[in-house]
Protein backbone atom coordinates (compact mmCIF):
# COMPACT_ATOMS: atom_id res chain seq x y z
CA UNK A 1 0.00 0.00 0.00
CA UNK A 2 1.39 3.46 -0.80
CA UNK A 3 2.64 5.42 2.19
CA UNK A 4 0.55 8.49 2.92
CA UNK A 5 2.80 11.39 2.09
CA UNK A 6 0.65 13.75 0.06
CA UNK A 7 -1.43 16.52 1.59
CA UNK A 8 -4.35 18.68 0.46
CA UNK A 9 -3.92 20.35 -2.95
CA UNK A 10 -1.13 18.03 -3.79
CA UNK A 11 -0.75 16.94 -7.38
CA UNK A 12 -0.30 13.43 -5.99
CA UNK A 13 -3.14 12.00 -3.92
CA UNK A 14 -4.03 8.53 -2.82
CA UNK A 15 -7.02 6.75 -1.38
CA UNK A 16 -7.32 3.24 -0.06
CA UNK A 17 -10.96 2.26 -0.61
CA UNK A 18 -10.63 -1.14 1.06
CA UNK A 19 -11.33 -0.05 4.67
CA UNK A 20 -14.34 1.98 3.49
CA UNK A 21 -15.74 -1.01 1.59
CA UNK A 22 -15.12 -3.30 4.59
CA UNK A 23 -17.21 -0.92 6.71
CA UNK A 24 -19.98 -1.00 4.12
CA UNK A 25 -19.44 2.56 2.87
CA UNK A 26 -19.57 3.56 -0.77
CA UNK A 27 -16.17 5.13 -1.53
CA UNK A 28 -17.46 7.10 -4.53
CA UNK A 29 -18.11 10.38 -2.60
CA UNK A 30 -14.57 10.23 -1.15
CA UNK A 31 -13.10 9.57 -4.58
CA UNK A 32 -14.98 12.48 -6.13
CA UNK A 33 -14.00 14.75 -3.24
CA UNK A 34 -10.34 13.85 -3.75
CA UNK A 35 -10.59 14.44 -7.47
CA UNK A 36 -11.91 17.95 -6.72
CA UNK A 37 -8.75 18.54 -4.67
CA UNK A 38 -6.49 17.16 -7.35
CA UNK A 39 -4.61 19.61 -9.55
CA UNK A 40 -5.49 19.31 -13.29
CA UNK A 41 -2.08 17.77 -14.06
CA UNK A 42 -2.00 15.48 -11.01
CA UNK A 43 -2.59 11.84 -10.18
CA UNK A 44 -4.89 10.02 -7.76
CA UNK A 45 -3.81 6.51 -6.83
CA UNK A 46 -6.78 4.42 -5.73
CA UNK A 47 -6.41 1.07 -3.99
CA UNK A 48 -9.34 -1.32 -4.17
CA UNK A 49 -10.07 -5.03 -3.51
CA UNK A 50 -11.39 -5.51 -7.07
CA UNK A 51 -11.25 -3.84 -10.47
CA UNK A 52 -13.79 -1.01 -10.15
CA UNK A 53 -15.29 -1.25 -13.65
CA UNK A 54 -18.32 1.04 -12.98
CA UNK A 55 -15.97 3.74 -11.62
CA UNK A 56 -13.72 3.40 -14.66
CA UNK A 57 -16.71 3.91 -16.94
CA UNK A 58 -18.06 6.84 -14.90
CA UNK A 59 -14.76 8.72 -14.64
CA UNK A 60 -13.84 7.86 -18.22
CA UNK A 61 -17.00 9.63 -19.34
CA UNK A 62 -15.88 12.67 -17.32
CA UNK A 63 -12.57 12.82 -19.21
CA UNK A 64 -10.28 11.05 -16.74
CA UNK A 65 -7.82 8.40 -17.86
CA UNK A 66 -7.75 5.31 -15.64
CA UNK A 67 -5.09 2.59 -15.52
CA UNK A 68 -6.14 -0.41 -13.39
CA UNK A 69 -3.40 -2.85 -12.34
CA UNK A 70 -3.88 -6.08 -10.38
CA UNK A 71 -1.16 -6.20 -7.70
CA UNK A 72 -2.32 -9.42 -6.05
CA UNK A 73 -5.40 -11.32 -4.88
CA UNK A 74 -8.08 -8.79 -3.88
CA UNK A 75 -5.59 -5.99 -4.43
CA UNK A 76 -6.00 -3.56 -7.30
CA UNK A 77 -4.40 -0.20 -7.90
CA UNK A 78 -6.04 2.31 -10.20
CA UNK A 79 -4.20 5.40 -11.42
CA UNK A 80 -6.66 8.18 -12.12
CA UNK A 81 -5.31 11.00 -14.29
CA UNK A 82 -7.17 14.17 -15.28
CA UNK A 83 -7.17 14.91 -19.00
CA UNK A 84 -4.38 17.53 -18.68
CA UNK A 85 -2.03 15.19 -16.83
CA UNK A 86 0.84 13.63 -18.77
CA UNK A 87 1.32 9.88 -19.00
CA UNK A 88 3.46 8.33 -16.27
CA UNK A 89 6.92 7.49 -17.63
CA UNK A 90 8.12 4.24 -16.13
CA UNK A 91 11.81 4.14 -15.16
CA UNK A 92 11.55 1.21 -12.75
CA UNK A 93 13.65 -1.02 -14.97
CA UNK A 94 16.61 1.33 -14.97
CA UNK A 95 19.37 0.91 -12.37
CA UNK A 96 20.71 3.89 -10.43
CA UNK A 97 21.57 6.54 -11.50
CA UNK A 98 19.87 6.15 -14.89
CA UNK A 99 16.41 7.27 -13.65
CA UNK A 100 18.13 10.39 -12.28
CA UNK A 101 19.87 11.00 -15.62
CA UNK A 102 16.66 10.51 -17.62
CA UNK A 103 14.52 12.69 -15.35
CA UNK A 104 17.05 15.53 -15.28
CA UNK A 105 17.33 15.42 -19.05
CA UNK A 106 13.55 15.49 -19.48
CA UNK A 107 12.78 18.22 -16.95
CA UNK A 108 15.26 20.65 -18.45
CA UNK A 109 13.17 20.48 -21.63
CA UNK A 110 9.88 21.13 -19.84
CA UNK A 111 8.09 24.31 -20.93
CA UNK A 112 6.86 26.76 -18.27
CA UNK A 113 3.89 25.11 -16.51
CA UNK A 114 4.94 21.76 -17.96
CA UNK A 115 4.71 18.61 -15.85
CA UNK A 116 6.60 15.32 -15.77
CA UNK A 117 5.14 12.28 -14.03
CA UNK A 118 7.62 9.45 -13.57
CA UNK A 119 7.70 6.16 -11.72
CA UNK A 120 11.15 5.26 -10.35
CA UNK A 121 12.52 2.17 -8.57
CA UNK A 122 13.42 4.05 -5.38
CA UNK A 123 12.80 7.45 -3.82
CA UNK A 124 15.66 9.40 -5.44
CA UNK A 125 16.92 11.50 -2.55
CA UNK A 126 19.76 13.00 -4.59
CA UNK A 127 17.37 14.26 -7.26
CA UNK A 128 15.35 16.64 -5.11
CA UNK A 129 18.01 19.27 -4.36
CA UNK A 130 18.95 19.19 -8.05
CA UNK A 131 15.33 19.85 -9.03
CA UNK A 132 15.22 22.75 -6.62
CA UNK A 133 18.39 24.15 -8.19
CA UNK A 134 16.52 24.07 -11.50
CA UNK A 135 13.61 25.90 -9.78
CA UNK A 136 11.29 22.94 -10.26
CA UNK A 137 8.50 22.04 -7.85
CA UNK A 138 8.24 18.37 -6.98
CA UNK A 139 6.24 15.95 -4.93
CA UNK A 140 6.64 12.24 -4.45
CA UNK A 141 4.50 9.30 -3.46
CA UNK A 142 6.30 6.23 -2.17
CA UNK A 143 4.69 2.94 -3.19
CA UNK A 144 4.83 -0.52 -1.68
CA UNK A 145 7.98 -2.39 -2.70
CA UNK A 146 10.02 0.80 -2.52
CA UNK A 147 9.15 2.34 -5.90
CA UNK A 148 7.89 5.91 -6.09
CA UNK A 149 5.91 8.26 -8.32
CA UNK A 150 7.34 11.74 -8.80
CA UNK A 151 5.44 14.77 -10.05
CA UNK A 152 7.70 17.56 -11.32
CA UNK A 153 6.30 20.95 -12.31
CA UNK A 154 8.15 23.82 -13.96
CA UNK A 155 6.47 26.94 -12.60
CA UNK A 156 8.95 29.50 -13.82
CA UNK A 157 11.90 29.89 -16.11
CA UNK A 158 15.05 28.43 -14.54
CA UNK A 159 17.06 31.15 -16.23
Amino acid at each position, binding site marked *: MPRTTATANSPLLQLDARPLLEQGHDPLPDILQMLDRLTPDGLLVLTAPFCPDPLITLLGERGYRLNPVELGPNHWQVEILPSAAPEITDYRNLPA*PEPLEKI*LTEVTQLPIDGVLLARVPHVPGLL*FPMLEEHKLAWS*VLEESGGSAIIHIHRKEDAG
Partner: protein
Amino acid sequence: MSFLAGMNRLSLDQAPPLEIPATFFLTAPVAVIAAGAVLLWAGASAFQSNWLPLVLGLTHLGTLGFLTMVMMGALYQIAPVVAGAPVPFIRLAHLVHVLLCAGVAGLVLSLTGLWEGSTFNFFTLVAVAALLFVVTVGFAVARSKTPGETVAGMRLALFSLLLAVLLGLIMARGFFHGAFPGMHNFWIQVHLTTALLGWVGGLITAVSWQVVPMFYLTAELPSFRKKTVLLLTTLGVVLPLMALLASQAVPGGTSGWSPTHVAAFGALPAVLGVWLLHPGLILQNLRGRRRKRLDASLFFWQAGLCLAPVTAVVAGIAFFADDPRWAFLFGWLAIWGWAGIIVHGMLSRIVPFLVWFHRFSPHIGRIRVPAMRNLLPDSWTKLGLGFHVASLVLGALAIITRDPWIARATGVLMLATGVNLLHWIIYTLRQQPDLSALATDE
Protein backbone atom coordinates in the same frame (compact mmCIF):
# COMPACT_ATOMS: atom_id res chain seq x y z
CA MET B 1 7.85 22.64 -2.71
CA SER B 2 7.72 19.12 -1.46
CA PHE B 3 4.94 16.99 -0.09
CA LEU B 4 7.22 14.25 1.15
CA ALA B 5 7.00 14.38 4.90
CA GLY B 6 9.85 13.33 7.12
CA MET B 7 12.27 12.46 4.39
CA ASN B 8 15.97 12.99 4.91
CA ARG B 9 17.15 15.75 2.67
CA LEU B 10 20.64 16.16 1.39
CA SER B 11 21.61 19.62 0.32
CA LEU B 12 24.24 19.66 -2.38
CA ASP B 13 26.21 21.96 -0.11
CA GLN B 14 26.42 19.10 2.41
CA ALA B 15 27.86 16.61 -0.07
CA PRO B 16 31.65 16.51 0.22
CA PRO B 17 33.63 17.86 -2.73
CA LEU B 18 34.72 15.28 -5.30
CA GLU B 19 38.40 15.72 -4.44
CA ILE B 20 37.90 14.15 -0.99
CA PRO B 21 36.80 10.64 -1.99
CA ALA B 22 38.90 10.93 -5.16
CA THR B 23 42.21 11.27 -3.30
CA PHE B 24 41.46 8.12 -1.30
CA PHE B 25 40.41 6.20 -4.42
CA LEU B 26 43.50 7.32 -6.34
CA THR B 27 45.82 6.11 -3.59
CA ALA B 28 44.25 2.67 -3.13
CA PRO B 29 45.58 1.15 -6.40
CA VAL B 30 49.07 2.30 -5.42
CA ALA B 31 48.87 -0.10 -2.46
CA VAL B 32 47.92 -2.92 -4.86
CA ILE B 33 50.86 -2.02 -7.11
CA ALA B 34 53.16 -1.92 -4.08
CA ALA B 35 51.90 -5.32 -2.88
CA GLY B 36 52.49 -6.75 -6.36
CA ALA B 37 56.02 -5.32 -6.38
CA VAL B 38 56.76 -6.78 -2.93
CA LEU B 39 55.53 -10.21 -4.04
CA LEU B 40 57.57 -9.97 -7.23
CA TRP B 41 60.65 -9.11 -5.20
CA ALA B 42 60.12 -11.52 -2.29
CA GLY B 43 58.69 -14.49 -4.20
CA ALA B 44 57.62 -17.44 -2.05
CA SER B 45 59.50 -16.12 1.00
CA ALA B 46 56.41 -13.95 1.54
CA PHE B 47 54.56 -17.19 2.37
CA GLN B 48 57.06 -18.82 4.71
CA SER B 49 55.86 -17.76 8.16
CA ASN B 50 52.97 -15.70 9.52
CA TRP B 51 55.33 -13.96 11.88
CA LEU B 52 57.66 -12.47 9.28
CA PRO B 53 57.61 -8.65 9.26
CA LEU B 54 57.32 -8.88 5.47
CA VAL B 55 54.02 -10.77 5.82
CA LEU B 56 52.78 -8.24 8.36
CA GLY B 57 53.67 -5.48 5.89
CA LEU B 58 51.91 -7.18 2.97
CA THR B 59 48.81 -7.88 5.07
CA HIS B 60 48.49 -4.24 6.14
CA LEU B 61 49.16 -3.05 2.63
CA GLY B 62 46.00 -4.96 1.70
CA THR B 63 43.86 -4.14 4.72
CA LEU B 64 44.90 -0.52 5.31
CA GLY B 65 46.41 0.56 1.99
CA PHE B 66 43.70 -0.85 -0.23
CA LEU B 67 40.54 -1.85 1.67
CA THR B 68 40.51 0.85 4.36
CA MET B 69 41.66 3.51 1.90
CA VAL B 70 38.68 2.83 -0.40
CA MET B 71 36.24 2.31 2.44
CA MET B 72 37.18 5.61 4.09
CA GLY B 73 36.85 7.52 0.80
CA ALA B 74 33.49 5.88 0.13
CA LEU B 75 32.19 6.57 3.64
CA TYR B 76 33.03 10.28 3.36
CA GLN B 77 30.68 10.31 0.39
CA ILE B 78 28.03 7.80 1.45
CA ALA B 79 27.64 8.65 5.15
CA PRO B 80 26.09 12.11 4.61
CA VAL B 81 23.77 10.76 1.90
CA VAL B 82 22.55 7.80 3.91
CA ALA B 83 22.63 9.44 7.33
CA GLY B 84 21.16 12.71 6.07
CA ALA B 85 23.74 14.81 7.90
CA PRO B 86 27.02 16.31 6.73
CA VAL B 87 30.39 15.12 8.05
CA PRO B 88 31.72 17.96 10.24
CA PHE B 89 35.11 19.49 9.51
CA ILE B 90 35.14 17.73 6.14
CA ARG B 91 38.51 19.28 5.20
CA LEU B 92 40.07 17.16 7.94
CA ALA B 93 39.65 14.30 5.44
CA HIS B 94 42.80 15.58 3.71
CA LEU B 95 44.73 15.23 6.96
CA VAL B 96 43.28 11.73 7.48
CA HIS B 97 44.41 10.83 3.97
CA VAL B 98 47.94 12.16 4.45
CA LEU B 99 48.32 10.43 7.84
CA LEU B 100 47.00 7.13 6.49
CA CYS B 101 49.26 7.28 3.43
CA ALA B 102 52.32 8.18 5.50
CA GLY B 103 51.48 5.54 8.10
CA VAL B 104 50.94 2.72 5.60
CA ALA B 105 53.96 3.65 3.47
CA GLY B 106 56.21 3.90 6.53
CA LEU B 107 54.86 0.62 7.91
CA VAL B 108 55.53 -1.28 4.72
CA LEU B 109 58.98 0.23 4.19
CA SER B 110 60.05 -0.46 7.76
CA LEU B 111 58.57 -3.97 7.89
CA THR B 112 60.16 -4.96 4.59
CA GLY B 113 63.49 -3.64 5.87
CA LEU B 114 63.74 -0.94 3.19
CA TRP B 115 63.75 1.87 5.72
CA GLU B 116 65.05 2.12 9.27
CA GLY B 117 62.05 4.01 10.65
CA SER B 118 60.23 3.07 13.87
CA THR B 119 57.38 0.74 12.90
CA PHE B 120 55.43 1.62 16.03
CA ASN B 121 55.44 5.33 15.09
CA PHE B 122 53.92 4.47 11.72
CA PHE B 123 51.21 2.40 13.42
CA THR B 124 50.57 5.50 15.56
CA LEU B 125 50.08 7.62 12.42
CA VAL B 126 47.53 5.11 11.15
CA ALA B 127 45.79 5.13 14.53
CA VAL B 128 45.55 8.95 14.56
CA ALA B 129 44.14 8.89 11.00
CA ALA B 130 41.56 6.27 11.99
CA LEU B 131 40.64 8.17 15.15
CA LEU B 132 40.09 11.44 13.24
CA PHE B 133 38.05 9.56 10.66
CA VAL B 134 35.87 7.72 13.18
CA VAL B 135 35.20 10.87 15.22
CA THR B 136 34.13 13.01 12.22
CA VAL B 137 32.25 10.43 10.17
CA GLY B 138 30.92 8.84 13.35
CA PHE B 139 29.47 12.21 14.38
CA ALA B 140 27.36 12.32 11.19
CA VAL B 141 26.34 8.68 11.41
CA ALA B 142 25.62 8.79 15.16
CA ARG B 143 23.39 11.86 14.78
CA SER B 144 21.42 10.29 11.96
CA LYS B 145 17.72 9.96 12.60
CA THR B 146 17.35 7.67 9.59
CA PRO B 147 16.14 4.30 10.79
CA GLY B 148 17.45 1.19 9.13
CA GLU B 149 20.11 -1.43 8.98
CA THR B 150 22.48 0.54 6.72
CA VAL B 151 23.06 3.27 9.29
CA ALA B 152 23.23 0.71 12.11
CA GLY B 153 25.76 -1.33 10.11
CA MET B 154 27.86 1.79 9.50
CA ARG B 155 27.90 2.47 13.24
CA LEU B 156 29.07 -1.08 13.89
CA ALA B 157 31.75 -0.78 11.19
CA LEU B 158 33.09 2.48 12.64
CA PHE B 159 33.09 1.09 16.17
CA SER B 160 34.95 -1.99 14.91
CA LEU B 161 37.51 0.12 13.05
CA LEU B 162 38.25 2.03 16.23
CA LEU B 163 38.60 -1.21 18.19
CA ALA B 164 40.76 -2.90 15.55
CA VAL B 165 43.11 0.08 15.41
CA LEU B 166 43.38 0.35 19.19
CA LEU B 167 44.08 -3.38 19.51
CA GLY B 168 46.59 -3.13 16.68
CA LEU B 169 48.34 -0.23 18.36
CA ILE B 170 48.55 -2.05 21.69
CA MET B 171 49.91 -5.14 19.93
CA ALA B 172 52.42 -3.10 17.92
CA ARG B 173 53.66 -1.51 21.12
CA GLY B 174 54.02 -4.99 22.61
CA PHE B 175 55.88 -6.34 19.58
CA PHE B 176 58.31 -3.49 19.23
CA HIS B 177 58.83 -2.56 22.88
CA GLY B 178 58.90 -6.09 24.25
CA ALA B 179 55.82 -5.88 26.45
CA PHE B 180 53.08 -7.79 24.66
CA PRO B 181 49.91 -7.55 26.76
CA GLY B 182 48.93 -11.25 26.60
CA MET B 183 48.88 -14.31 24.36
CA HIS B 184 49.82 -13.41 20.80
CA ASN B 185 47.28 -15.67 19.10
CA PHE B 186 44.48 -14.54 21.38
CA TRP B 187 45.05 -10.84 20.68
CA ILE B 188 45.51 -11.45 16.96
CA GLN B 189 42.27 -13.45 16.91
CA VAL B 190 40.33 -10.54 18.45
CA HIS B 191 42.09 -8.00 16.22
CA LEU B 192 41.27 -10.09 13.13
CA THR B 193 37.64 -10.44 14.10
CA THR B 194 37.07 -6.73 14.71
CA ALA B 195 39.02 -5.69 11.59
CA LEU B 196 37.82 -8.24 9.04
CA LEU B 197 34.34 -9.08 10.23
CA GLY B 198 33.40 -5.92 12.12
CA TRP B 199 34.98 -3.13 10.05
CA VAL B 200 35.20 -4.68 6.56
CA GLY B 201 32.28 -7.09 6.89
CA GLY B 202 30.10 -4.60 8.76
CA LEU B 203 30.54 -1.99 6.05
CA ILE B 204 30.20 -4.38 3.09
CA THR B 205 26.94 -5.77 4.46
CA ALA B 206 25.59 -2.33 5.42
CA VAL B 207 26.37 -0.81 2.02
CA SER B 208 25.02 -3.84 0.16
CA TRP B 209 21.52 -3.31 1.61
CA GLN B 210 21.57 0.12 -0.02
CA VAL B 211 23.42 -0.32 -3.29
CA VAL B 212 22.43 -3.79 -4.51
CA PRO B 213 18.71 -2.93 -4.93
CA MET B 214 19.66 0.45 -6.47
CA PHE B 215 22.27 -0.73 -8.96
CA TYR B 216 20.91 -4.15 -9.89
CA LEU B 217 17.16 -3.64 -9.40
CA THR B 218 16.64 -6.39 -6.89
CA ALA B 219 13.82 -6.51 -4.38
CA GLU B 220 14.42 -4.96 -0.97
CA LEU B 221 15.34 -7.68 1.49
CA PRO B 222 12.96 -8.08 4.44
CA SER B 223 14.13 -6.06 7.39
CA PHE B 224 14.36 -9.04 9.76
CA ARG B 225 16.93 -10.74 7.50
CA LYS B 226 19.11 -7.64 7.46
CA LYS B 227 18.69 -7.31 11.22
CA THR B 228 19.73 -10.95 11.68
CA VAL B 229 22.99 -10.36 9.78
CA LEU B 230 23.60 -7.19 11.79
CA LEU B 231 22.87 -8.90 15.10
CA LEU B 232 25.15 -11.85 14.29
CA THR B 233 27.97 -9.54 13.22
CA THR B 234 27.60 -7.42 16.35
CA LEU B 235 27.65 -10.52 18.55
CA GLY B 236 30.72 -11.82 16.73
CA VAL B 237 32.56 -8.55 17.39
CA VAL B 238 31.44 -8.09 20.99
CA LEU B 239 31.93 -11.66 22.30
CA PRO B 240 35.66 -11.96 21.48
CA LEU B 241 36.17 -8.47 22.86
CA MET B 242 34.45 -9.50 26.10
CA ALA B 243 36.70 -12.56 26.26
CA LEU B 244 39.70 -10.27 25.88
CA LEU B 245 38.48 -7.87 28.56
CA ALA B 246 37.70 -10.81 30.87
CA SER B 247 41.16 -12.27 30.34
CA GLN B 248 42.72 -8.95 31.35
CA ALA B 249 40.49 -8.59 34.41
CA VAL B 250 40.68 -12.24 35.53
CA PRO B 251 43.76 -13.92 34.04
CA GLY B 252 43.06 -17.62 33.46
CA GLY B 253 39.33 -17.04 33.92
CA THR B 254 38.22 -18.97 30.85
CA SER B 255 37.51 -22.19 32.80
CA GLY B 256 40.33 -24.18 31.29
CA TRP B 257 39.49 -23.20 27.71
CA SER B 258 42.23 -21.66 25.64
CA PRO B 259 41.41 -17.92 25.40
CA THR B 260 42.14 -18.12 21.67
CA HIS B 261 39.46 -20.81 21.33
CA VAL B 262 37.02 -18.68 23.34
CA ALA B 263 37.68 -15.71 21.05
CA ALA B 264 37.34 -17.86 17.92
CA PHE B 265 34.06 -19.39 19.06
CA GLY B 266 32.85 -15.93 20.05
CA ALA B 267 33.50 -14.77 16.49
CA LEU B 268 31.38 -17.58 15.01
CA PRO B 269 28.13 -15.55 14.89
CA ALA B 270 29.92 -12.93 12.75
CA VAL B 271 31.39 -15.65 10.51
CA LEU B 272 27.88 -17.00 10.07
CA GLY B 273 26.40 -13.55 9.39
CA VAL B 274 29.08 -12.06 7.13
CA TRP B 275 30.51 -15.05 5.27
CA LEU B 276 27.52 -17.40 5.07
CA LEU B 277 24.15 -15.69 5.57
CA HIS B 278 24.90 -12.35 3.85
CA PRO B 279 26.32 -13.87 0.63
CA GLY B 280 23.42 -16.34 0.51
CA LEU B 281 20.84 -13.57 0.84
CA ILE B 282 22.47 -11.22 -1.68
CA LEU B 283 23.23 -13.91 -4.28
CA GLN B 284 19.66 -15.16 -4.07
CA ASN B 285 18.43 -11.59 -4.36
CA LEU B 286 20.64 -10.95 -7.39
CA ARG B 287 19.24 -14.01 -9.14
CA GLY B 288 15.80 -12.39 -9.04
CA ARG B 289 16.97 -8.97 -10.26
CA ARG B 290 14.67 -7.18 -12.69
CA ARG B 291 17.47 -5.73 -14.77
CA LYS B 292 19.08 -8.62 -16.63
CA ARG B 293 21.73 -6.55 -18.42
CA LEU B 294 25.15 -7.94 -17.51
CA ASP B 295 27.31 -5.41 -15.81
CA ALA B 296 30.97 -5.88 -14.89
CA SER B 297 30.42 -4.62 -11.33
CA LEU B 298 27.81 -7.35 -10.88
CA PHE B 299 30.44 -10.01 -11.65
CA PHE B 300 32.63 -8.52 -8.89
CA TRP B 301 29.78 -8.81 -6.38
CA GLN B 302 29.02 -12.38 -7.45
CA ALA B 303 32.68 -13.46 -7.37
CA GLY B 304 33.34 -11.81 -3.99
CA LEU B 305 30.19 -13.21 -2.41
CA CYS B 306 30.88 -16.73 -3.72
CA LEU B 307 34.32 -16.54 -2.09
CA ALA B 308 32.85 -15.61 1.31
CA PRO B 309 31.76 -19.14 2.32
CA VAL B 310 35.05 -20.55 0.99
CA THR B 311 36.85 -18.04 3.22
CA ALA B 312 34.78 -19.21 6.21
CA VAL B 313 35.65 -22.87 5.58
CA VAL B 314 39.36 -22.10 5.13
CA ALA B 315 39.26 -19.97 8.31
CA GLY B 316 37.93 -22.99 10.21
CA ILE B 317 40.60 -25.30 8.80
CA ALA B 318 43.34 -22.72 9.44
CA PHE B 319 42.29 -22.46 13.08
CA PHE B 320 42.76 -26.16 13.75
CA ALA B 321 45.49 -27.07 11.24
CA ASP B 322 49.18 -26.87 12.10
CA ASP B 323 50.25 -26.20 8.51
CA PRO B 324 50.73 -22.39 8.25
CA ARG B 325 49.70 -22.47 4.58
CA TRP B 326 46.06 -22.62 5.66
CA ALA B 327 46.44 -19.37 7.59
CA PHE B 328 48.05 -17.75 4.53
CA LEU B 329 45.29 -19.05 2.29
CA PHE B 330 42.67 -17.70 4.68
CA GLY B 331 44.26 -14.23 4.75
CA TRP B 332 44.68 -14.24 0.99
CA LEU B 333 41.07 -15.25 0.33
CA ALA B 334 39.62 -12.84 2.91
CA ILE B 335 41.62 -9.74 1.95
CA TRP B 336 42.34 -10.10 -1.77
CA GLY B 337 39.43 -12.46 -2.52
CA TRP B 338 36.15 -11.74 -0.74
CA ALA B 339 36.71 -8.12 0.38
CA GLY B 340 39.22 -7.12 -2.32
CA ILE B 341 37.01 -8.17 -5.21
CA ILE B 342 33.86 -6.54 -3.80
CA VAL B 343 35.71 -3.29 -3.05
CA HIS B 344 37.34 -3.29 -6.52
CA GLY B 345 33.91 -3.75 -8.12
CA MET B 346 32.33 -1.01 -6.04
CA LEU B 347 35.02 1.42 -7.22
CA SER B 348 33.90 0.80 -10.79
CA ARG B 349 30.44 2.07 -9.81
CA ILE B 350 31.30 4.82 -7.34
CA VAL B 351 34.01 6.67 -9.30
CA PRO B 352 32.01 7.20 -12.54
CA PHE B 353 28.94 8.12 -10.52
CA LEU B 354 30.75 10.76 -8.48
CA VAL B 355 32.35 12.27 -11.58
CA TRP B 356 29.00 12.34 -13.38
CA PHE B 357 27.17 13.70 -10.34
CA HIS B 358 29.65 16.45 -9.44
CA ARG B 359 30.87 17.49 -12.88
CA PHE B 360 28.23 16.65 -15.46
CA SER B 361 24.78 16.63 -13.83
CA PRO B 362 24.74 20.41 -13.10
CA HIS B 363 25.01 21.02 -16.87
CA ILE B 364 22.15 18.79 -18.00
CA GLY B 365 19.91 20.75 -20.32
CA ARG B 366 22.61 23.31 -21.07
CA ILE B 367 25.15 21.14 -22.89
CA ARG B 368 25.29 17.58 -24.15
CA VAL B 369 26.03 15.41 -21.11
CA PRO B 370 27.21 11.80 -21.44
CA ALA B 371 25.44 9.00 -19.59
CA MET B 372 27.28 7.78 -16.51
CA ARG B 373 27.97 4.36 -18.00
CA ASN B 374 29.82 6.03 -20.89
CA LEU B 375 32.39 7.61 -18.56
CA LEU B 376 34.17 4.30 -17.99
CA PRO B 377 34.47 1.60 -20.67
CA ASP B 378 33.03 -1.65 -19.34
CA SER B 379 35.86 -3.60 -21.03
CA TRP B 380 38.44 -1.96 -18.70
CA THR B 381 36.47 -3.04 -15.64
CA LYS B 382 36.19 -6.58 -17.02
CA LEU B 383 39.94 -6.62 -17.70
CA GLY B 384 40.47 -5.57 -14.07
CA LEU B 385 38.28 -8.44 -12.89
CA GLY B 386 40.26 -10.85 -15.08
CA PHE B 387 43.59 -9.71 -13.62
CA HIS B 388 42.20 -9.74 -10.09
CA VAL B 389 40.73 -13.26 -10.30
CA ALA B 390 43.82 -14.61 -12.11
CA SER B 391 46.12 -13.17 -9.41
CA LEU B 392 43.86 -14.60 -6.70
CA VAL B 393 43.96 -18.10 -8.18
CA LEU B 394 47.68 -17.97 -8.86
CA GLY B 395 48.34 -16.58 -5.37
CA ALA B 396 46.40 -19.47 -3.81
CA LEU B 397 48.49 -21.85 -5.90
CA ALA B 398 51.69 -20.10 -4.80
CA ILE B 399 50.68 -20.45 -1.14
CA ILE B 400 49.94 -24.15 -1.56
CA THR B 401 53.03 -25.02 -3.63
CA ARG B 402 55.39 -22.35 -2.20
CA ASP B 403 56.78 -22.12 -5.70
CA PRO B 404 58.81 -18.87 -6.03
CA TRP B 405 57.94 -18.39 -9.69
CA ILE B 406 54.22 -18.77 -9.15
CA ALA B 407 54.53 -16.26 -6.30
CA ARG B 408 56.37 -13.85 -8.62
CA ALA B 409 53.79 -14.38 -11.37
CA THR B 410 51.12 -13.52 -8.77
CA GLY B 411 53.05 -10.32 -8.08
CA VAL B 412 53.01 -9.48 -11.79
CA LEU B 413 49.26 -10.04 -12.00
CA MET B 414 48.69 -7.91 -8.88
CA LEU B 415 50.79 -5.19 -10.48
CA ALA B 416 48.62 -5.44 -13.59
CA THR B 417 45.45 -5.26 -11.47
CA GLY B 418 46.71 -2.16 -9.67
CA VAL B 419 47.92 -0.43 -12.84
CA ASN B 420 44.63 -1.14 -14.62
CA LEU B 421 42.68 0.19 -11.64
CA LEU B 422 44.82 3.30 -11.32
CA HIS B 423 44.60 3.91 -15.06
CA TRP B 424 40.82 3.87 -15.26
CA ILE B 425 40.38 5.87 -12.05
CA ILE B 426 42.65 8.61 -13.46
CA TYR B 427 40.89 8.37 -16.85
CA THR B 428 37.45 8.75 -15.24
CA LEU B 429 38.51 11.53 -12.87
CA ARG B 430 40.03 13.53 -15.74
CA GLN B 431 36.73 13.68 -17.63
CA GLN B 432 35.30 17.19 -17.81
CA PRO B 433 32.17 18.56 -19.44
CA ASP B 434 32.77 20.48 -22.65
CA LEU B 435 31.68 23.96 -21.62
CA SER B 436 32.85 25.63 -24.82
CA ALA B 437 29.34 25.42 -26.32
CA LEU B 438 27.96 27.14 -23.23
CA ALA B 439 30.55 29.92 -23.49
CA THR B 440 29.68 30.45 -27.18
CA ASP B 441 25.98 30.78 -26.33
CA GLU B 442 26.69 33.34 -23.62
